[in-house]
Structure formats: C-alpha cells, structure tokens
C-alpha cells in the first residue's frame, strides 16, 4: 500500500525514468538471458561437437592400436592431445570396458579413470566427457573418452560480465537520451501546473501558458488557455459589474448624503419599511426611533395630502408611472408640518413582478417658502401669509395692502447682458426692497411686512396695518426712489426702474383677487410710463379684462383677417421719389375699431403671439409687394421693409420663414428689407450676429432700426451685416437744437464709413429735410412725406404713378430710364410739373 501510494505520488519524471529503466533493463535482461541460454547451448554444442570430433579422430587412429593391443601406440595417440589445452584426460577402453590407455594433461594422476558410459557427451563437474566407441568396421573394439575442461563456464562468465557492462551502458544512455523526451513531457506539464498555481494564487487571469509543445499536451495547454480566457472574461465582466455596482452605490450614498436625503425601502411581501437615520432625523426623531412599519410613514402625511400621495404611490407601484415623485406635508415630531419631496422607484424582480419600492425623501420646506436666488420668501409663502392676513382682517378688521412690483425692461437686460447679470440685478433689487420695507414699518405694528419674489422679475409686498392707500403709496414711492440709484452689475453701472401696483385688502376677498388686482394696477403703471405706481381701482379691472380680451382676440385676429398692413413710403432725399415702403400692422378690431400697434403689440410680445403676428406681417407684405412689382414694375424695384421683433429674431424658425415667404411670393430677396431694432440685437449679440449673417446669405436687406437708442457701442456696428441705418426719430426731432445735428452728423459719418445707407425717421418739417440733405443723409421717412396709408390707397397711388410714367414714355418716345418714376408724396404734382416744363422747353 505504501508502495502504491509512493507510486501514485511520484512525478512524471520519476515514472518516466522508471519506465525507461524498466524497459531497458527488461529488454536487456531478456536479451541477455536469451543470448546467454542460446550461447550456452551453442557453446556446449560446439564443445561437444569438437570433443566428439576429436574423439572420433582419435578413435579412428586408435583402432589399430586397440586391435593389436598396442598400448604404447595407444598412449602415443593420446599423447597427441597434449596439443589441445582444453583436454585434460583421455582414456581408451578396450572391448571389455577396461581402461586400455590413459592420458592426463596436468599430470595429477587421478586414481581411476572415469567409469565407462555409453557413447555420448556428458557434462559433469565443469568438464565435458565425450565417449566415443572405437569401431573397426562392424566390430566394436573399445571406447575412447575425452574429457575437456568446461571452459564454457568461463566463457559464459565473461559473457555475463560483458552483457552486464553493456546493460549498464545502454541503461545509462537510454536514461540520458530518455531524459530529453522526459523533459519534453514533464516540463510542459510542470509549466502548466505552475501557471495554474500562479493563477489561483495571484488570481491573475491574464497569464497564459506558453505553448511549448504540440500533441496532447499542446492541446491541453490550448484548452487551458481557452479556459483562462473565458474565466478572464467572466472575471472582467464580474469585476466591471462589481465596480459599477460599487460606483453606483457610492454615487447614491454620496448623493444621498449630499442631498441630505432620507432613504426608505419598502418590501411589500413582508410589509416592512426601512427608514434611514436621516429619514428619522428629518422628522425630528432619533436615528432609529421609528419602527419598520409603513404606518409610520402614512400616518404622518398631512390629511389633505394623504389620499393624493397614496394614489401616486399606487401608480408607481403598478407601473403606470415609472417614478414616484410627490410633494406633500409630513408631521414633524414637534407637531408642525414640513414639506417633503418623496422620490421612489419600484424594483422589479426577474419575473417582472414588484416586491420592493425604494427611494429618497427630501426636506423641501426651505425651497417651498423661500426663493433660492434672493432668499426672499416665494409665492407659496406669500399666498399663505396673505391667507392669514385676510383671516385676521376678517376677524379683527383692519386694512392691509398688497404691492406688486415688476422691473421694467428686465427681459431686455436679461437678454442683453445675460442671465448672470439679470440674477445680480434681481438680488440687488431684492436687497433694496428689503431696505425700503424695513424702514417703512408703521408705528405700533406687530407684524413686519412680507416681501416675496413671485418669480421672474416680479416681487410682492404684503403691508400690514395700513390706514389707507396713502401708507402704501409712501412705501411705493420710497421703493421707486431707492431703485433710481444705479446698480453695479458685472462691473458696469446699470439703471433699473420698476412699475408698482397697489391693491388694498378692501378691493378683494380672496388672496387670488387681491393679487390679481395688484397685478392689474402694476400693468397700468407700466402702460402709463414705467417707474411709477398705480393704485388699483375698479376701472383698472376693466382695463385688465380688456388686456386679456385683446390677447384672446388677437389670437383669433390673425386667422380672421382682422389684421391689415399699412404702408409708409420711404423716399430719397435727393429727388423725393419713393424707393420703398415700410409695412406697419393695424388691427381692424370688430368692436374697437382700428387699433394701432401700440395697443396690441406689447400684449403680443408678452407671449409667442408676436411670432405668429410677425410671420403674418412678413408674408402679407411680401405678397403684396410681389403683386405690385408685377403690376407696376419700375427700376430700381420698390422695396418693402418689415419689422422683426426681438422675439422673432431669436426664433429658430425665422430663417426658414423668410425663405419660405420669398419662395412662396416670388419676391426678389433684394427687395425685402428686415428692420431690427438696435436693442433687440444687443440682447444676445452672438446669436443675433449668426442669425443676421444667415439672413444676409438669403440676400435680403438688413436695416438697423431706432439707431441710437440701444446700448450698443458704436464699434460693434461694423461687425453687423447691416445695409442701412435708420436714425431714431428722437434725434431727428432734435435737429437744429443743441447737439442734435452733431449727433446725426456723427451717425451719418459712421454709416458712410461703413458703407451703409441712412434713413432718417420721423421727418415732419421741411427744415428737417433741408438739414438732412445738407448733412448728406440719403433717405427719409415721416409724416412730411407721407403718413402710413392703407393698401388700397397705396395701390391707387402706384397706379397713378404708373399711368404718369406711361404717359411720359409716350411723350418721350419711350425712354423710361431717362425719366425716373416718382411720385413726390408731399407734392404729388411737383415732379410732374417740372417734367412737363422741361418737356415744354
């Protein structure tokens, strides 16, 4: 058994060595034994043959001696054997078997001759005895015995020695040579086992066994390597999965920690919920004070929210909603309620069923009542306080006031300087509001006023214990005063103003009423001119309603063709001829008559209505001009200018709209001028630039409107691809007074240097035209030349002009180029008169 164990545990090398040795030994042994046996046999045979032959020969020789009883002769014959070293004794026996003559080699005379035996060879005591009968013819004369030493054994002994030596030699050689083969078998296996051990110890699955041999071991190595590759892939996948899991766990933990969220985990099958320590803390309890029952959660939900929350939870559980996201109130340990945001996810198992829902809980009370940017309370809070104030007012009487505050042109600031600047401004405003409000606490008043940010650029103030509107007005004035001082925004100085609306608690019953009233008053203030306050009265209600009405009606107006375009001529200052028209929109309101843009465009600009409006205007204007081109062609063709509102400029579809309209109407792009106000560009210069460039690629004309009123620096102008500058009417009004002319001159110089043409807006007097001409202005527009006229009127004028033109042609013999068509708007007949005079002379 021990041996068996030893064998089992022995190495391949050992086994191979044993195998080789055994093999060789066995082979050699067998060979040796066989050869030995054979050799022995052969030797014996040979010896026997030899001796017998010798005996035979001697027998033959001895016949005569025996026949004649001649002992001497016989002895002589035997003596010849001296020559043969091996023969130690020879005896001739007579016919009676008695020794007749004897020969002994070594001289030691043995006592007696060996006894006679029948003829043959006998091996005895290391000697070979050969008995041969001596015959003469048929007669048996006697027997001769020859005895030789059996040096067979010597020879055999020598033979064995040689065989042994050879055996050892060959063993050694075969072991030596075999070791190579051994190695080629054992080494790869050893190497393989080393690799395997290394892999299992170091858990490094990237190692591979080198394929140093072929055959079965080679394919074993290959399989081994394949297996390792697969394991490696598994390991990698597993590790990756592990890592991802760990990462996401960490992430969640971090997020949870960072978010200061509580975590919950609800296992439906056991109906147990896990609440994290933070979850407990959020509600004012110790880390694990609450148990594991879902009741802990549900029972604490505010009664008015409970049903909704449970509903939403069910929806998430069933999978109707992917996520549970719900805000509601929960009862804190101290009795008060906090707002929480619960997020949850139903965890599905492999079979698609849901047994678990888990998620987070965030305390959003802060967010709920405070605006993150300004740290002022938010609308919710304000409304809440308003609620309480109304209650109090009902119970104890008294007045309070709600003030609404809106920053004028805040949008412009946001667009022109960016949201960061806008935020800074808001914060600044909030600060000043606080300062104003604190200073304005009425005497003997327990409650401080509440300042809140309602959103965007809207702020509200709840002023308690107001005697009459005068108190509120004082606050409003103070606020407006405070806001007059410049703000430092992003290193620059900036001015902001606000519109304030005041509504007394007497004007409404509910918080919504009061807030609406204040809002209305604020709009009124805005409409009246900004940086003012207005106190709500019943009239305003109507106005507010009217505003709402307008918006509603306007939406329909576009579809119901209540909008019309009026056209105002742009003229060349050199010859007063009309070069184009500006399209201005009017609203043919069914009940309110013709409304000018000022009455509805601001409303439209509040919403996306303006985009629809603008698109309609663009299309209609182009369509109309295309028609006129066809009917009343002239050279150069008339242009049509269309205003593009800031909102339109930032609309991504603007480009497409222009392209579509041009394609639709067939109007040549060069005849379309788009007017963009300076201020609307400065909102987001980069985006504006891109849009303008793209528009330029369409080959339309670009005019910068109200130039001089925006916040741009003149150096920006050269970057913008404008063709024309339209000087704002305010500068034209100043012509002739103070520095007005200088400004215009500067603008003209700038435009000239930039190779832009200039149009002066709002030209009303002849003097202005002269001045402008002197200053070198190209074109003008204004009441002096023409008011905006309806489509029909404009068309009539064009018709007339065209007829005049034909008439001239007839008279001139048809040289339309020589007579520039024109219809001096102010003096319809002037040019005509001049021309006829010319012709007359």
């Amino acid at each position, binding site marked *: 058994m021990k041996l068996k164990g030893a064998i089992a545990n022995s190495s391949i090398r050992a086994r191979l060595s044993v195998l080789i040795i055994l093999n060789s030994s066995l082979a050699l042994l067998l060979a040796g034994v066989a050869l030995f046996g054979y050799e022995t046999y052969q030797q014996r045979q040979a010896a026997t043959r030899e001796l017998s032959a010798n005996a035979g020969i001697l027998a033959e020789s001895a*016949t*005569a001696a025996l*026949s*004649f*009883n001649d002992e001497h*002769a016989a002895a002589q014959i035997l003596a010849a054997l001296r020559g043969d070293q091996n023969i130690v004794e020879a005896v001739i026996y007579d016919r009676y078997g008695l020794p007749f003559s004897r020969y002994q080699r070594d001289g030691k005379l043995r006592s007696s001759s060996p006894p006679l035996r029948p003829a043959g060879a006998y091996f005895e005591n290391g000697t070979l005895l050969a008995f041969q009968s001596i015959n*003469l*013819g*048929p*007669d048996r004369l006697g027997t001769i015995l020859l005895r030789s030493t059996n040096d067979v054994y010597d020879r055999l002994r020598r033979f064995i020695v040689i065989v042994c030596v050879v055996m050892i030699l060959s063993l050694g050689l075969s072991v030596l040579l075999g070791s190579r083969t051994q190695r080629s078998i054992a080494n790869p296996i050893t190497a393989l086992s080393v690799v395997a051990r290394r892999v299992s110890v170091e858990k490094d699955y990237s190692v591979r066994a080198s394929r140093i041999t072929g055959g079965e071991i080679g394919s074993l190595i290959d399989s081994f390597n394949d297996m390792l590759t697969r394991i490696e892939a598994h390991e990698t996948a597993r590790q990756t999965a592990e890592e991802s899991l760990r990462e996401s766990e960490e992430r969640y933990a971090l997020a949870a920690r960072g978010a200061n969220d509580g975590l919950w985990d609800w296992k439906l099958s056991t109906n147990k919920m896990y609440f994290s320590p933070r979850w407990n803390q959020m509600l004012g309890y110790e880390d694990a004070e609450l148990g594991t029952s879902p009741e802990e959660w549900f029972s604490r939900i505010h009664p008015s929210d409970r049903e909704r929350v449970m509903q939403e939870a069910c929806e998430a559980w069933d999978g109707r909603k992917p996520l549970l996201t719900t805000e509601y109130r929960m009862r804190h340990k101290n009795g008060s309620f906090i707002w929480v945001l619960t997020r949850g996810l139903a965890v599905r198992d492999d079979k698609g069923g849901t047994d678990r829902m888990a998620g987070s809980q965030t305390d959003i009370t802060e967010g709920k009542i405070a605006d993150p940017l300004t740290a002022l309370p938010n609308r919710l809070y304000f409304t809440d306080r308003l609620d309480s104030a109304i209650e109090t007012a009902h119970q104890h009487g008294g007045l309070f006031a709600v003030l609404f505050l809106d920053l004028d042109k805040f949008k412009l600031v946001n667009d022109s300087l960016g949201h960061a600047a806008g935020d800074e401004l808001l914060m600044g405003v909030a600060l000043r509001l606080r300062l104003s409000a604190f200073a304005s606490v009425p005497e003997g008043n327990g409650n401080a006023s509440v300042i809140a940010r309602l959103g965007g650029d809207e702020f509200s103030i709840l002023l308690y214990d107001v005697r009459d509107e005068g108190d509120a007005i004082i606050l409003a004035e103070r606020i407006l005063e405070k806001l007059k001082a410049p703000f430092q925004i992003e290193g620059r100085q900036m001015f902001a103003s606000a519109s304030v609306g005041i509504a007394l608690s007497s004007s409404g019953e509910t918080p919504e009423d009061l807030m609406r009233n204040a809002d209305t008053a604020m709009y009124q203030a805005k409409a009246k001119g900004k940086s003012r306050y207005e106190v709500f009265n019943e009239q305003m209600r109507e106005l507010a309603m009217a505003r709402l009405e307008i918006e509603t009606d306007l939406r329909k107006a576009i579809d119901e063709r209540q909008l019309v375009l009026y056209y105002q001529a742009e003229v060349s200052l050199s010859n007063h001829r009309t070069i184009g028209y500006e399209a201005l929109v009017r609203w043919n309101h069914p009940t309110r008559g013709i409304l000018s843009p000022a009455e509805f465009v601001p409303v439209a600009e509040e919403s996306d209505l303006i985009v629809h409006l603008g698109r309609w205007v663009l299309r209609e204007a182009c369509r109309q001009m295309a028609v006129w081109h066809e009917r009343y062609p002239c050279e150069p063709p008339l242009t049509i200018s269309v205003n593009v509102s800031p909102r339109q400029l930032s609309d991504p579809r603007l480009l497409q709209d222009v392209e579509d309209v041009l394609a639709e109407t067939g109007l040549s792009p060069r005849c379309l001028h788009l007017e963009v106000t300076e201020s609307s560009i400065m909102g987001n210069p980069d985006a504006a630039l891109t849009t303008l460039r793209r528009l330029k690629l369409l080959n339309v004309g670009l005019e910068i409107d109200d130039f001089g009123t925006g916040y741009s620096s003149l150096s920006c102008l050269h970057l913008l691809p404008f063709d024309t500058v339209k000087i704002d009417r305010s500068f034209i009004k100043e012509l002739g007074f103070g520095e007005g002319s200088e400004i215009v001159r500067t603008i003209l110089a700038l435009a000239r240097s930039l190779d832009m043409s200039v149009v002066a807006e709002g030209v009303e007097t002849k003097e202005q035209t002269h001045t402008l001409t002197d200053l070198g202005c190209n074109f003008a527009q204004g009441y002096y030349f023409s008011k905006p006229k309806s489509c029909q009127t404009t068309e009539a004028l064009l018709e007339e002009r065209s007829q005049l033109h034909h008439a001239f042609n007839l008279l001139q013999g048809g040289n339309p180029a020589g007579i520039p068509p024109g219809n001096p708007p102010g003096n319809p007949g002037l040019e005509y008169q001049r021309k006829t005079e010319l012709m007359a002379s």
Partner: protein
Amino acid sequence: MVLRLSLAMVLAAQFGGDLRAQLDEYQVKAAFLQNFAKFIEWPAEAFSSPSEPFTICVLGQDPFGRSLDDAVAGKLIATHPIAARRIADARLTTGCQILYVSSSQQKHVFSILAAGKQTGILTVGEARDGTPEDVVINLTLEQGKVRFEINLRKANEEKLHISARLLSLATVVRK
C-alpha cells in the same frame, strides 16, 4: 621358455587339446591375422567376386587350432566372409589371401611361392631368429606381447597396400 613350451603345446594341440596359455597367444595372433586384413588392401584380382571368401590359409603346422576358426567365424572382411583353410602343400595357396607359414615350412614355401609368382598373398610368418625377408608380416613376441614386423618391399611386391596405422604399430618396417 614358456613360449617354447606353448609352441610345443600348440603343435601338440593339433591333435586335440586346448592349452590356455598357448591358446591365448595364438588367439591373439589369430585376431591379429584377422585384424591385419582390416588394415590391408588386397589388389582387385585377388578376388574373383565380392562374395568370394577371404581365406586365411595356414601352411604347415597349425599352431592356432580352433582359435583361428573361432576368431574368423561369421566375420567378414569387407564383403568377404572369412574362411580358414589348412593346407599342407605350398602349391595349394591359390585363393589364399593370408598365408600363415609356420616356421617349419618356411624355407620351402618361399621358394615355391617365388616360383609361383602369385600375388596378393599376405604372408605371415614367425621367424625366431634372423630376419625373415620373405614374409610380409613377421610376428614376434616381445615381453609377452605379440608384435609384428612389416616388410614393406615384400608387401609392395605382393601388391598389398598397408595402412599407415598398421605400419605405425609395426616394430620394424623393412623397406
């Protein structure tokens, strides 16, 4: 002395009686005679046919007695059965291969033989004195042992071929 006595006895035995010593000697000699035949080749004309007997003739006094007959009974020399004949006269040697000439007759015989010019006869004699020149083999007795001398010239005359082995045993070989 004893031999002389034996000879006498042999002579006496012709008329019946076996003397042991005498028998021994002439038994031996008889065997010798036979044995000679085994080592000598006769010429072809010595036999007319293979079945012709090989005759050993004893001329004169027969010292062998029955020993000769006993010795040759049933024996063969090659294919020839051996026969023993006693002849009284030298002229009756025809058909004798071996002729033993007793000493008494010796002188006569050879002159007859010489006159006859017969070949192929192995003459065997026992000359006690002098050197016999007429017999091929001369039997002698030395130290109690029977010996013989061979006259090779005579053998050649008789056209007998004597084996070397026999020659080597002879005490004297006359050429």
